[in-house]
């Protein structure tokens, strides 16, 4: 699993990257009550809006950590947005991307680097 400074995670499953937000981000957001996932087929560049996650208080953007094309969105979040809090780095994933350039992942942090980054916040 790789991580961004915006607290997204990416995990490669073959040629497809699964994307979600980290446990730290889910904790900071508080109770998630709504998730807007992207449409399948949408092409995104790194840093583009990929999804929106809403707590009772506020809406927050989730950015694409790397460029690619959306091949699947986690439709289960529509009825169970609380999954993002319960299992942020597993069942609470947002979307799967076919990567434009798999080597992009290497620019992201690994877990020790992300954990070290969290210590600086």
């Amino acid at each position, binding site marked *: 699993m790789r991580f961004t400074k915006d607290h997204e995670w990416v995990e490669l499953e073959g040629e497809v990257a699964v994307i979600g937000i980290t446990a730290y981000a889910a904790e900071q957001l*508080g*109770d998630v*009550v*709504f998730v*807007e996932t992207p449409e399948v087929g949408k092409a995104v560049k790194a840093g583009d809006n990929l999804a*929106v996650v*809403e*707590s*009772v*208080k*506020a*809406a927050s953007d989730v950015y694409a950590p790397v460029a690619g094309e959306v091949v699947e969105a986690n439709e289960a979040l529509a009825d169970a947005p609380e999954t993002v809090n319960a299992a942020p780095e597993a069942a609470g994933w947002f979307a799967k991307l076919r990567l434009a350039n798999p080597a992009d992942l290497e620019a992201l942090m690994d877990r020790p680097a992300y954990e070290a980054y969290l210590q600086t916040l």
Partner: protein
Amino acid sequence: MPDIPAETVLRTTPLTEAHLALGARMVPFAGYTMPVQYAGEQGGVLREHLWTREHAGAFDVSHMGQARLTGPDVLAAFEALTPGDFQGLEPGRQKYSLLLNRQGGIVDDLMAGRPDDEGLFLVVNGACKDNDFRVMGEALAGRAAIERLEDRALIALQGPKAAAVLARHAPQAAAMVFMDIRGIEAFGTEAIVSRSGYTGEDGYELSVPAEAAVHVWNTLMADERVRPVGLGARDSLRLEAGLPLYGHDLDETVSPVEAGLAFAVSKPRRRRADFPGAERILGEFAHGCARFRVGLKVLEGAPAREGAEVADEAGRPIGVVTSGGFSPSLRQGIALAFVPPLFTDPGTRLKVVVRGKPQAAEVAPLPFVPHRYVRTL
């Protein structure tokens, strides 16, 4: 001279340390550092909200402005700044009222009561208090004296268990009904207690000396029926109760009629037409107004938040959401919005535009969640 930067040091309340000890997430609000939600399995906006609806929540609202108005002519002098009936206010009662500008716009909404025979006790919005007391000071000069009560904390205890909890620590509070206010002994200290609040639930607000606040708070925390509740749930609770929030749903351009607060314009004052902005406000009673505050239930998609456009079914823009979010009790998006009178009937189908997408919504009666005030014992 160069501009002096705005005050960047946040003020604290007598309870700030207690919030930190409870793991509160603190945010800047009205110039204070305030708890938005608390930590742990019992914390978070959703759980704090639902706990208040089912049990009792304690809120630190010490950022709000408290003041005493005194003087032989104080009731008449204060009344002149509002559309309310304060000369007829009995000792032991308080009223919700509005500070109006000359154009009939709302400078602030407030509570004004008579806990005793010593004039009026006021509670105003934290973000408005400096301006409010300056405006009142100028208007009341020579007729009434304002004493700001900076050395008092304000704690709200709200929810169906609030009365039973408070009865143990302030027996006299049990004899009060909604909108009663009294100077009584509570938690072994002198307190100004009103049976009122900002959640739609039964409950009380307690003004206590700053040095007694931690004792009052910790005593409440020791009761298993009570949990601490932050500003996040305070906002979602008041939204479900259909209560407007100054600076969002109310401002200096909005009239009491537009805001759905016509009840705050008393019948005798309407007859006398002697309140600020009477010409406009009486005109709106007679001929209607261009916009009106309504409740909206969002029927699909994301919650609509402040600033979201409201459109008719054909997609024409007709208004704007002034506050909105997710209702923990109803488990759907709810909002307050201003729309033209043609679109105010409950059940009217409208659209709210969230991130460019029109979503179905409908006008809903306010409050969204029924009030449970105790009006008789």
